[in-house]
């Protein structure tokens, strides 16, 4: 059954809410009252419920099955966290309530900050960034601010070629130029190449650890020493913290700042593309430059600092409205309290164990890019598909027909036709074994010459492969009453 757009379900005079007529008053709109209708459709509540229920049924989530998207950490999202995010006195709290009426909320933020600092062994954390990329921005701005205070002009940031695309984009958004560092044959930063790039114009290195090949950068400490010796800062992308939480503290490795994706490591739901939250832990060197606002705790209780109050703090500014992604804070704190220090450690261990289990169980039929062990994700390239006529994309789409969400494809760029799979700690061995068996069967099929199955995939989805080129060439980004495309689609 095809589900139309809400605009195509429209009928005049229908409404999904019941509101009494407004009390009669003399308006104070100064003649700026809207003249034309907005153009919104009229639907009743049952129609809205059914429409979005049906849309949801066209979606795949962690609740539907394994979602081994590398670098995305699609782990179980407990319903307890959803419930608590809606708790009275938290979910309904207004951000501009006087601090005296929000002591519990401020305490919650402070408690979460304590957990994040303890897990990372870092002395400070900026809580307000709204997502991972926003956290990167926060960290790089703090670095720039620190350099400015030192009166230096350092305009270059070193970024490995395997970096997330957000890293260079963030560096650019802070006015830095980006200089790429190559990887060595072991999938790590080439230490010599990196050292050769250092200079007094280098502001920082932005490194992901564990890196985007799913490997631990074993030269972390050497890198930290080198960048610090060169007068730069060490930015660590924390997207892969799930591999090491509770086992390795990034602060022990000499980093200066790292963002933490609460929606990756600490299980706040991805929600089809957010919201996230990206708190940034900071070293003592960078701590003074944390953005506004932040929470302080003194004898009088908790207090929100929303403006530069002088003193040691030299906040670089504000990154968003209000104080951070409170709803995500509640969820991630609930996740951490549930796991505890012991559970976090066990979770990261299970995530790494599961990835290595995939690596060990698949490396005879797929081509592992680097020798193991890996961290929490296993990287393969498309060498095993050579001469089969099946591409990485075809292979991934064929997985959908077997009931699995595909892994990440074509990233990282350092290997050809990458297939990056991250099982997380949330999958049972039974599911991992099913996944392995499915992939092995697909490998056999690809090698058997049965290309058409791959080219036709996916076949059992609400839609077959979609024409992304056409979408980009002549973008249709909204419904319009007169658009040919919308009515002809039925």
């Amino acid at each position, binding site marked *: 059954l*095809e589900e139309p*757009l809400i605009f195509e379900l429209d009928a005049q005079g*229908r409404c999904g809410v019941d509101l009494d007529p*407004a009390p009669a*008053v003399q308006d104070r*709109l100064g003649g*700026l*009252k809207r003249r034309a209708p907005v153009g919104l*459709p009229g639907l009743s509540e049952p129609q*809205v*419920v059914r429409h979005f229920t049906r849309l949801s049924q*066209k*979606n795949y*989530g962690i*609740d*539907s099955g394994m979602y081994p998207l590398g670098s995305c950490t699609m782990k179980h999202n407990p319903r307890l966290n959803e419930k608590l995010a809606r*708790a009275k006195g*938290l979910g309904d709290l207004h951000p*501009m309530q006087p601090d005296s*009426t929000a002591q519990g909320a401020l305490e919650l933020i402070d408690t979460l900050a304590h957990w994040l600092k303890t*897990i990372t062994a870092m002395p400070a954390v900026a809580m307000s960034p*709204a*997502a*991972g990329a926003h956290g990167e921005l926060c960290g790089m701005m703090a670095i720039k601010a620190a350099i400015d205070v030192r009166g230096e002009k350092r305009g270059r940031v070193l970024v490995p070629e395997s970096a997330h*695309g*957000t890293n260079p*984009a963030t560096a650019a958004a802070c*006015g830095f130029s980006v200089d790429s560092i190559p990887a060595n044959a072991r999938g790590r930063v080439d230490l010599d190449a990196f050292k050769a790039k250092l200079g007094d114009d280098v502001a920082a290195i932005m490194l992901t650890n564990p890196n985007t090949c799913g490997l631990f950068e074993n030269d972390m400490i050497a890198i930290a020493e080198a960048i610090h010796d060169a007068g730069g800062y060490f930015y660590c992308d924390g997207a892969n913290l799930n591999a090491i939480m509770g*086992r*390795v503290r990034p602060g*022990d490795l000499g980093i200066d700042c790292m963002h933490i994706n609460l929606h990756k490591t600490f299980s706040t*739901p991805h*929600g089809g*593309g*957010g*919201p996230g939250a990206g708190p940034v832990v900071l070293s003592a060197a960078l701590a003074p430059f944390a953005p506004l606002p932040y929470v302080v705790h003194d004898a009088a209780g908790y207090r929100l600092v929303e403006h530069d109050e002088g003193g040691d703090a030299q906040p*670089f500014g504000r990154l968003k*409205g*209000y*104080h951070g*992604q409170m709803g995500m804070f509640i969820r991630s704190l609930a996740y951490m*309290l*549930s*796991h*505890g*220090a012991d*559970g*976090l*450690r*066990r979770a990261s261990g299970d995530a790494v164990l599961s990835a290595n289990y995939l690596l*060990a169980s698949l490396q005879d039929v797929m081509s592992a890019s680097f020798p193991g*062990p890996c961290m929490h994700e296993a990287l393969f390239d498309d060498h095993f598909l050579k001469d089969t006529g099946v591409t990485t994309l075809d292979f991934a*789409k064929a997985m959908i027909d077997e009931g699995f969400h595909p892994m990440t494809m074509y990233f990282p760029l350092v290997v050809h036709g990458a297939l990056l799979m991250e099982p997380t700690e949330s999958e049972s061995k039974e599911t991992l074994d099913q996944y392995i068996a499915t992939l092995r069967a697909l490998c056999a099929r690809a090698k058997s010459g049965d290309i058409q199955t791959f080219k036709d995939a996916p076949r059992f989805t609400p*839609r*077959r492969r979609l*024409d992304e080129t056409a*979408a980009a060439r002549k973008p*249709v980004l909204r*419904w319009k009453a007169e658009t040919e495309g919308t009515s*002809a689609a039925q």
Partner: protein
Amino acid sequence: MRYLPLTDADRSAMLDKIGVGATRDLYCDVPAGALLTDPVDLPLHKGEQDVERTIAALGAKNISPSDAPCFLGAGAYRHHIPATVDYMIQRGEFLTAYTPYQPEVSQGTLQALFEFQTQVALLTGMDVANASMYDGASACAEAVMMAARITRRGRAVLSGGLHPHYRAVADTHARFLGHEMTGPAPRLEGDEDIAGLIDDNTACVVVQTPDVFGRLHDLTALAEACHEKGALLIAVFTEAVSLGLIAPPGEMGADIVVGEGQSIGNALSFGGPYVGLFATRDKYVRQMPGRVCGQTRDSEGKRGWVLTLSTREQHIRREKATSNICTNAGLCALAFTVHMSLLGEDGLRRLAEINHAKAVMLADKVAAINGVRVVNDTFFNEFTVELTRPAALVVEDLAARGILGGVPLSRLMPGRAQFANHLLLAASETVGDDDIARLCAALKEVL
């Protein structure tokens, strides 16, 4: 551990397959000494009941707007959220999905985003919208950067009526990009002269309506002034419900419209997560930041949706991307879309009318109190009053009486002594006559 499906037997079997003796052997690349042997210094795991009690106890330390007359606004507004909205966004297929990179198994999220984009475009009177930003303030900053890219100019003129958080976020970005940010100081008297500040190097003018004091503005003349100088007009709103009753910025000539979408479908949640709305003209779409969902066809010719124009985005363009934004506010956008679908044309208009009427009634009631002067000539559901005492103290006195009595301007603009006695008061459909009566009675006591 309720969240971990592996048993000890599973772990042994898996380690055997891998060929190592213990999980810690998989961490062999970690520098010696950095691999912890013990758990970090934090409490051990807790059952669901304990976690629930811990968090509920924190909630109980706050005064909930659900329990107290609440007149807080200043960019975040308390509205009734239909139960349908909260049910729908909790469905696992929406909640636990990733960004829809695999469109064949993400048509639900994608179609909803397409509907969201259309709703935002309609609401603002613009051609197109993106699939959401972090919040209104960050959307505003992105708009300024976008204007700079389009005009290749590095100067922005910001109205004194712009919400100070929005101003601050834009300033932060400008500082790092070397842009010049200027504009008149906030003032309560008369209209500010912004048109006179536009020069040939001005990328954009940013103006908010209703502004932070609650006043409405006709942007038509300003839009013309901008366009004469080759600058873009960026219109900002913090209360999406206002667009149900007042003329949309798109009609008045704005080039980019940004604002906060929290009011529709999203809980207050102490400030986040919210949902930034971002709309512009067709001609600027390739300079627009953020994700967009576009319509296309599948291999059988059926209509479907995909994320598109990704060549603007950081995973393709890296340092040349239009923005570094990646994860946005997908689920908040879904909440917005579901609530807006329930409201529809009639519901949104009526909701806006009720909000305005409540605010008018509130203004009339407080104006009658000795020591209160309503400053605004025009407003939607929020306005400024001048008191005879510092507003921050009055707010504390009201809180002691169980009333969340508005936002003192001094909290938003602490450096400006002329606003010490000014208070922002907001009213929505959630405010009852009894709430207004309680506020008025309390104000009489504390003034």
